């Protein structure tokens, strides 16, 4: 049993924390990959900008300005500091539900990125700054895993994490290989950069050796069973946590979001991964993104903003 508002906040903490971590990696890889003026550096810049913006891409932004905007711009919900501020604001609202260990980690990160020295630290050594935030976020996740009860609250936190993750990986795949956006990445360095952005380079190399090709990358980021950022892995966790939190909800016979989550999981589990054409992959990624958005709305309608008439005590 937990308050509907609290479940909603925990879900959003999960989403914002995941988003902040992803944005840090994008900014870091962007700065690193654009140190030289080659074709691949242009590809990386285009890929990052199209992964973080909705539709319109200003073409003439310098990589430094783009990384700065991704990291520090406040007010924009897609910057690292804004995401962390919102995660922490949500955490404050459900402070009684988080363990002190978990809260302290998040509070520390927040104090650092919003502190008076943050801008200078970023300008002096952006890579170090971003690396520290990612490491701190891992500490947060570790503290949550090790100290929070893995019950309903945990389920909502994880749902937020994995829905956000599936969407981020999906958008990165679209930015890297999507035909609709034109100009898919082809350069070797740009493809490694893409793997780095999803923290997948080392696991990929172990599986496919240094044979880096678009088809294998796509297969890995979509269908790998064990890699924690693949679409298959993320959707399986969504299904798992949703069936956990939905166990005690009586919808009076109507279908809840679990059905959608199960179908989404099956789409990736039973896809013909080896023979899928580029076009079909695009379609599948688009479907995953669309169904994640529907899951997001479905969770809100089922657990948070349900109509009271349906649930009045008999």
């Amino acid at each position, binding site marked *: *049993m*937990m*308050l*509907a*508002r*609290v*479940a909603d906040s925990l879900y959003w903490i999960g989403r914002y924390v995941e988003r902040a971590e992803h944005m840090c990696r994008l900014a870091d890889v962007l700065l690193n990959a654009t140190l030289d003026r080659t074709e691949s550096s242009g590809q990386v810049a285009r890929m990052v900008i199209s992964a973080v913006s909705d539709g319109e891409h200003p073409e003439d932004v310098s990589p430094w300005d783009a990384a700065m905007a991704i990291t520090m711009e406040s007010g924009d919900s897609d910057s690292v500091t804004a995401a962390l501020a919102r995660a922490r*604001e949500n955490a*404050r*609202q*459900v*402070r*009684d*539900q988080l363990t*002190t260990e978990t*809260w*302290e980690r998040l*509070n*520390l990160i927040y*104090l650092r990125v919003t502190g008076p020295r943050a801008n200078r630290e970023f300008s002096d050594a952006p890579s170090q700054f971003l690396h520290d935030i990612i490491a701190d976020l891992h500490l947060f996740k570790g503290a949550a895993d090790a100290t929070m009860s893995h019950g*309903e609250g945990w389920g*909502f936190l994880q749902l937020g994490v994995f829905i956000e993750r599936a969407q981020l990986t999906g958008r990165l795949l679209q930015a890297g290989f999507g035909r609709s956006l034109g100009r898919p990445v082809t350069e070797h360095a740009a493809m490694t950069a893409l793997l780095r952005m999803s923290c997948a380079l080392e696991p990929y190399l172990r599986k496919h050796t240094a044979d880096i090709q678009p088809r294998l990358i796509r297969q890995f980021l979509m269908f790998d069973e064990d890699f924690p950022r693949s679409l298959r892995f993320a959707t399986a966790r969504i299904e798992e946590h949703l069936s956990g*939190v939905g166990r*005690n*909800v*009586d919808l009076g016979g109507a279908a809840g979001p679990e059905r959608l989550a199960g179908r989404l999981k099956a789409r990736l589990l039973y896809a013909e991964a080896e023979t899928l054409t580029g076009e079909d992959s695009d379609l599948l990624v688009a479907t995953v993104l669309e169904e994640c958005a529907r899951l997001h709305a479905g969770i809100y309608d089922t*657990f*948070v903003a*349900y109509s*009271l008439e349906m*649930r*009045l*005590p008999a």
Partner: protein
Amino acid sequence: MRYALAETTPIAGATAPGPAPYDEMIDPDGDVRPHYAALARRVASLSDEDLAERQRLLERFFLLQGITFTVYGAESSTERIIPTDLLPRIIPAGEWATIEAGLVQRLRALNMFLADIYSDQKILMDGVVPRELVLGAPSYRREMQNLFVPHQAYANVCGSDLIRKPDGGFAVLEDNLRVPSGVSYMLANREAAKRTFPGSFRMAGVRRIEQYPDLLLSTLRSMAADWRPNPQVVVLTPGVYNSAYFEHAYLARLMGVPLVEGRDLVTHDNMVYMRTTTGLRRVDVIYRRVDDDFIDPLTFRRDSSLGVAGLFNAYRGGNVVICNAPGTGVADDKAVYAYVPEIISYYLGEDAILPNIETFLCREPSQLSHVLANLDKLVVKAVGASGGYGMLVGPHASRAERESFAEALRADPENYIAQPTIQLSTAPCLIDGAIDPRHVDLRPFILSGDKIRVTPGALTRVALKKGSLVVNSSQGGGSKDTWVLGETEAGEAGA
């Protein structure tokens, strides 16, 4: 190491220098009082850097815990911690026994007073307290008339403000029976003090206060109806932007009960429910940290969005208990305060163990003229205000301030009371790296449900500005940990 005492005339412009304030640590001869001896030795053995380091440790603890309030600036907002002083204030066992007995007596009488006011009003019939003073007070809630309150416990949580007078005796400055706050600082200060002075703490034999959340929970549970076997308790907060939000979350977490906002609750058929992920769930006891005015827009203020529509009817129906009961404010009204000694002897037939501060009611013409004539010596307070707002500290005010206040007094005398300027006692504090005395008060917390319990500890509030007598956190006050010593004076035995 010798300690400076506060100068005897800290108040510029005071016509007559009053008696020197009582110092908690140093006796008038300049020697350390016995119950402070161990701590004084420990502090003396520390260098300035050690002290500064401990102060940093303390502040970091508060920052990490998120015990902060937000200062909103023009461009951005920053978070600050509540100023917290490193050096604990120590109260020996004998003094505490008097305080405890006095607080229990006072709260018993005030609860009986409330039960009487909201039923037969015998005390008004007998003319002990003026009828218009009670029934005319804005905090009197006629909606509470003849409403059953379990154990007659109207004020379940009470935080009284005590001060120590120059003669060393404690007196009650104010009773807070509405939604007193500060208990989380008492607990957080203790957690921090255990880290900063572990050795002295162990040696001193300090009494435990960590049981407060458990006692609060059992007090709240005792208010639920007997036929509800496992009552659901919740803490109702105005929300995350309230300055005491940290405390609401802290108490909810330590009691293990949900922290709800008004929007989480709904009423249906005169029952109160909370919206959970799996549907509605019945609520039995609401420890509300929302003022009377805002708890139910259908009964009290209609523009409130913090409360729950229909809550008061559910309460009247006996389906939910609101703690503290609405309308308790009438008993901590600053004008009713003057009658508390009479209230105690009326109901209990006892003399007040803890005295009041002499109080002039400006509603009485003779007292008003006395107040106006002595404005430079008195503290004048608006009856309805709290938190250090709407008050004039005569000796510290400029002539112009006094004149404009006198104007307000003449215009609306019923709204004001006056008290002599009391030299609050002083306690050593770490100010800018040096140890210097500052004025302090004492806010212990008393719980009342099936029985009355006093936690052996308190929030000591500190006026951080030199010479200032205003300890409210909204007016530049800070706080420090308060050590109540056990029966055996272990502090001396261990030395």
